[in-house]
């Protein structure tokens, strides 16, 4: 059997999701596998999307926002939401609040997220009335919330979707999944990848894959609007260039890019060591700094 290849791209998770498959199998096997991968990404999208009003996350947000003062909410979570929330809360604790999934009100205020949950954000002081990750406890598949809050998993769910999708691929097939910069490869040793650090087409740095997964965050497609919010101040952070992180899981890489942007140099190294990750910061002129 000769080596067959298949490359497909669909619009999912609000971005372009590319799949590259190679294997000594029939074309139809690759097509069926690619369908399975896209279906898995779609499944995660329906669970964790902020934009989808029927998603498990939107239902959780709805209940959390209707919480009365002094009341505590306890909800059983699906395995997927539990896994993502548990990791996000662990990272929140480790980074001392530099990574927080409860920044949705700030993103809704800057119109980067829709206000379909009718958040009261007209006045700047209203943002202070929302709770943060300190008001969330996730334990054995059950989440407990003690203050009205709103969660956005935009900075972690794409990575998780890529991990879930890659787990569907058998060992004898080489696979690369790239969901808007969150990338994971089944056979990553010796592979090369391009890191894009500015809007211009030539702003690329070619590096060797250091681990199975890679994620990059940057603001250069957003014009003057920064998509990165400092959870401790609630303000949008000006960040030019890109931050890329290699690790063993796309979910970890995805979340660490945001945490590293907001951390000091020492904290970046500490985070990288703890999660066995490698961080690459490239400024808009192409100068590289490594953290590992």
């Amino acid at each position, binding site marked *: 059997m000769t080596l067959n290849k298949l*490359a*497909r*791209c*669909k*619009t999912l998770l*609000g*971005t*372009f999701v*590319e799949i*590259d498959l190679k294997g000594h199998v029939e074309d139809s096997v690759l*097509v069926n596998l690619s369908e399975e991968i896209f279906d898995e990404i779609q499944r995660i999208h329906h669970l964790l999307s902020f934009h989808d009003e029927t998603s498990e996350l939107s239902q959780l947000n709805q209940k959390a926002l209707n919480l009365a003062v002094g009341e505590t909410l306890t909800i059983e979570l699906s395995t997927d939401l539990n896994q993502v929330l548990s990791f996000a809360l662990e990272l929140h604790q480790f980074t001392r609040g530099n990574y927080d999934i409860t920044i949705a009100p700030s993103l809704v205020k800057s119109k980067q997220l829709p206000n379909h949950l009718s958040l009261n954000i007209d006045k700047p002081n209203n943002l202070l009335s929302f709770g943060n990750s300190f008001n969330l406890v996730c334990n054995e598949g059950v989440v407990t919330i003690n203050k009205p809050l709103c969660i956005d998993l935009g900075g972690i769910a*794409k990575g998780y979707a890529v991990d879930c999708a890659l787990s569907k691929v058998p060992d004898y097939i080489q696979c*690369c999944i*790239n969901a*808007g*910069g*969150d*990338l994971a490869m089944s056979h990553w040793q010796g*592979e*090369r*990848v*391009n*890191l*894009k*650090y500015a*809007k*211009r*087409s*030539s702003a*690329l740095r070619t590096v060797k894959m250091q681990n199975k997964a*890679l*994620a*990059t*965050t*940057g*603001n*250069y*497609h*957003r014009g003057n609007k920064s998509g990165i919010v400092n959870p401790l101040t609630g303000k949008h952070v000006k960040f030019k260039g*890109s931050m*890329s992180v290699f690790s063993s899981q796309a979910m970890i890489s995805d979340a660490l890019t945001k945490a590293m942007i907001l951390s000091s140099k020492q904290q970046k190294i500490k985070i990288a060591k703890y999660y066995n990750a490698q961080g690459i910061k490239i400024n808009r002129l192409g100068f590289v700094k490594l953290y590992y």
Partner: protein
Amino acid sequence: MQRRNFIKNTLLGLAGFTLMPKIAFSKTYLTIEQAKKILFKDKMLTPFPVNLTDAQAESIENAIDIRVRHLDVNAWRTESGDWFIIDQVIGKHENIDLAIALSKSGSVQGIEVLTYRESYGSQVMHPKWRAQFHGKNSSEFLKLDKQITNISGATLSCRHVTDGINRLTETHKQVLSLL
């Protein structure tokens, strides 16, 4: 003499800057035939090109507030009345070829990105660059294309693809469903 050299160097510099080739990255995923096979399996597809009139294009634009750039609809049809359409979507810095499968009633059955071309600068507005399309290649600009396999960068929104799909479903509602 110094002034002459200054003018000469300035003009050469400007000429070099304006004539400098701009790189455009591209990635090809599926051919039209592969997309047909994935979206319609072994169903027979017959070419059914449609030309929109100016009035129809205006009516579609008014209904959904999205610009109709091309009057020709590159379409195929199955015996049961389903549609396969190849379309081009132009974003701020990219040019995307799409394949879309619509049922007889107009619901979206599947979408495939066939080609993605990224560019930067005024190139996007150049008619020859925009003419790069399946079956309508512009060799002058394709020379600048560079096939890049794996790029990890800031997340790119696909909103303009969603706009393109809305335009095609509206085209089906107003024109194709009546044919």
